[in-house]
């Protein structure tokens, strides 16, 4: 029997696990959180069930059906609180990579360290908020949209009494809605892209968007209905500073032009006790990179047409090994905001037996993640590729990719955002690196090496390991000094989560490792 491991129990991972079970596989589903559902279906803990939980969610029925089907299945093992902290590629390519994971309390000291060597692997690790720096973003009371939503959904805690929501993308609306549901007042929702960009962006994907009534519903119906008349919404505006001594007391909102440059003279100060800001999403790539999966940074290369596998030539300059130092093709300007795991039309990555699904392969929303996960799980389990549902899934996924392009065209990060930074603005929160210091080092060294730049500025060397600042720093460096040349992918983290010495010392010796 094929043994399939799925990492991540959000929409893509649950769908993958469910499909792999349908195809007859034995499935292990791992998630670091205490419950399944991912960030999308964050919900109250089982100890505190809510009668009308569905009101907080899109597609709650999908979640209950999938999670029940998987949890009750005799061939399924669901392990919550399982932190995958390393992935070891298979040296001979005839097996899937081996997962190293620790089970127990989050960041505990006495977790159970375990190893899993499946026949096939589905990576559905999702994405986290991408929040661009702005003056004062390091004050307590500044949150990502994801934080505001997670606390509202899974704890019924509002991050403030009067909250400003800002950034870019349709995700701002459910953030505002969940804040309202948790009892907060939302002082305004500010979308960075001006109305013209939004219209042009969404029109560019009109065909694929119109083909998805559910998707449009998510954007226009459900959420806006809840917000209408209660929350001011403005496009072409953003929070360009947060103010306060030891906590947020107010923010400055300004009108932004099409490049997201603040328009002088339009600033106004809004009093608030919290702000939730998200400018998009960053895929969680570390496990895929550790597994050896190729990445790509534009839509055409992400999903090359045809089923003949991936052309390695697509991935020059993005080799995650990063040390092919004598053969670096001069890379084009990197597009760090849109770097994802490359998959073919079957959700196969460049590594045999490794599939990827959901936001780790592109930001296209939960419906796309469900379809991609289903396809990946089915094929990972050895399901019949000729099954009619496979063809249907491929067609749907192709349309969702159109949606992803439209989303990027309408809400994608524009280069003018750096105009709202000051020399004093923190760029790397962990290491307290300022924008002024970063640009001074770039100027004095002419650095073209991500590795050297990190060590010279300490950007990305703190506990988050560049998850928050990495792509920002890469983008600033490339804009000033040209594309980095050292082939280092800033998302590469061989230790994917902190692990204690006491736990490392308990790892099985290689000769004791059980490799059936």
């Amino acid at each position: 029997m094929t043994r399939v491991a799925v990492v991540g129990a959000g929409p893509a991972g649950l769908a993958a696990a469910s499909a792999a079970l349908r195809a007859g596989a034995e499935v292990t589903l791992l998630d670091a959180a205490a419950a399944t559902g991912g960030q999308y279906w964050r919900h109250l803990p089982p100890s505190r069930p809510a009668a009308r939980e569905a009101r907080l969610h899109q597609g709650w029925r999908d979640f209950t059906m999938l999670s029940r089907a998987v949890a009750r299945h005799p061939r399924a093992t669901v392990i919550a609180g399982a932190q995958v902290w390393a992935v070891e590629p298979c040296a001979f390519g005839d097996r899937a990579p081996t997962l190293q994971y620790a089970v127990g309390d989050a960041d505990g000291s006495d977790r159970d360290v375990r190893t899993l060597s499946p026949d096939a692997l589905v990576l559905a690790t999702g994405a986290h908020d991408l929040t661009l720096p702005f003056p004062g973003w390091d004050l307590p009371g500044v949150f990502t949209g994801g934080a505001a939503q997670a606390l509202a959904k899974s704890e019924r805690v509002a991050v403030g009494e009067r909250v400003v929501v800002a950034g870019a993308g349709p995700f701002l609306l459910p953030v505002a809605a969940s804040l309202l549901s948790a009892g907060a007042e939302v002082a305004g929702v500010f979308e960075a892209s001006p109305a013209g960009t939004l219209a042009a962006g969404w029109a560019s994907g009109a065909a694929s968007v119109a083909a998805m009534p559910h998707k449009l519903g998510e954007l226009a119906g459900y959420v806006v209905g809840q917000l209408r008349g209660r929350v001011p919404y403005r496009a072409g505006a953003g929070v360009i500073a947060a103010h306060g001594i030891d906590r947020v007391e107010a923010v400055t909102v300004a009108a932004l032009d099409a490049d997201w440059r603040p328009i002088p003279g339009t600033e106004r100060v809004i009093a608030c006790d919290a702000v939730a800001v998200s400018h998009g999403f960053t895929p969680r790539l570390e496990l895929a990179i550790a597994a050896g999966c190729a990445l790509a940074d534009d839509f055409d290369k992400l999903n090359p047409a045809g089923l003949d596998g991936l052309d390695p030539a697509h991935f020059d300059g993005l080799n995650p090994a990063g040390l092919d130092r004598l053969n670096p093709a001069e890379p084009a300007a990197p597009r760090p905001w849109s770097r994802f795991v490359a998959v073919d039309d079957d959700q196969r990555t460049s590594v045999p037996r490794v599939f990827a699904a959901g936001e780790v392969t592109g930001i296209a929303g939960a419906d796309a993640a469900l379809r991609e996960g289903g396809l990946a799980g089915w094929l990972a389990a050895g399901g019949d590729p000729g099954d009619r549902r496979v063809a249907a899934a491929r067609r749907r996924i192709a349309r969702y990719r159109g949606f992803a392009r439209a989303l990027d065209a309408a809400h994608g990060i524009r280069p003018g955002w750096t105009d709202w930074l000051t020399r004093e603005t923190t760029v790397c929160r962990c290491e307290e690196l300022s924008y002024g210091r970063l640009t001074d080092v770039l100027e004095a060294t002419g650095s073209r090496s991500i590795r050297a730049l990190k060590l010279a500025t300490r950007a990305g060397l703190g506990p988050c390991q560049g998850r928050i600042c990495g792509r920002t720093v890469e983008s600033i460096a490339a804009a000033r000094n040209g594309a980095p040349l050292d082939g280092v992918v800033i998302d590469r983290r061989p230790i994917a989560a902190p692990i204690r010495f006491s736990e490392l010392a308990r790892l099985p010796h290689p000769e004791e490792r059980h490799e059936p």
Partner: protein
Amino acid sequence: MHSDAIVIGAGAVGAACARALAGAGLTVTVLDASGAAAGTSGQGEGNLLVSDKLRGPELSLAMRSLELWDGLQRELDDELPPGIPPLEYERKGGLVVATTDDGAAPLLDFAAQQRAAGIDARPLTAAEALDLEPDLNPAVTAAVFYPEDAQVQPVNATEALLASARARGARTVFGARVIAALPAASDRLTGVRTTRGDFTADHVILAAGPWSGEVAACLGASLPVRPRRGVVLVTTRMPHRIFHKVYDADYVAAVESDAASLQTSSVIESTAGGTVLVGSSRQQRGFDDALDLTAVREIAEKATRVFPFLAGASVMRVYGGFRPFLPDHLPVIGPDPAVAGLWHATGHEGAGIGLALGTAELLRDLVTGRAPQLEPGAFAPSRGTLAAA
């Protein structure tokens, strides 16, 4: 474009060579396939050590280099722009400890030989060692303190040396991978063809670390340099509890070893950023940089034997570097025996930062025809111990 000298490789050794040559009045162009400190120099701890050396040419090179490092910050203070990060030079001293009865006698014997060679190596009682490092495992069986051991932040040091070279007129060109020698009428090397164009020079200095062998082959020369991999663990920031460089006595054996198989020993120290670096392993496996959990586990185990409190510390990062390794464990500094105009400066293995300044001084003296401070014969690329390899 023509220069007096081309330096291939913008790591610590190349940067130091460029600065020394520019300081001697030569026009210098530094070429790197990637960026500054993008290879070995960005993947090490920045050790400036005498504690792992014995009498011989490498010790002389290390002692001269340490002397030069000690004066470098003062020399750089006036020349460098504010964006160049600090060297983080610190003469913090090294403490080598044995934690087994079997390990005690060899450590003390080694230290006695080092004292005879002029190294300040001070045997300590367990109580004295615990005074220096209160969190050390009290079951120490022997300890030796080396007050001369020091460290720098290797990337910052490389960037500072390059910036100083530029202040002396040198030019750095990044993203220039060497493809071939330029065609020439004579049999002397007259320059290199790169992915960013042709560069001519009277002298070409090859300082590409573990990649020097491949570049040498492009230029018609041969150098038996190979990569030897090292792995270092980085903890999260913690209260300052480790005050010196602390090694277990296995370290010296691992450095000196010829074995290709994995060897680990503890090298533990705090950084200015509040993290603790825990090394290290040495293994020959080409340029394979996949995460090696066997090495990680062994390093973690040995480190907790030296500092038991580390058991609760979190590892947040692991990095591996490739060190340029020559079969007789000595660097090559000097003219290529076959290709006139080509010079080598590599093969320092894990000690390239520590030996960079002495290497650059010796190379400058050889290129410019000055009387060298150090006897160059032992480092000559023409030496018999390399030809045999």
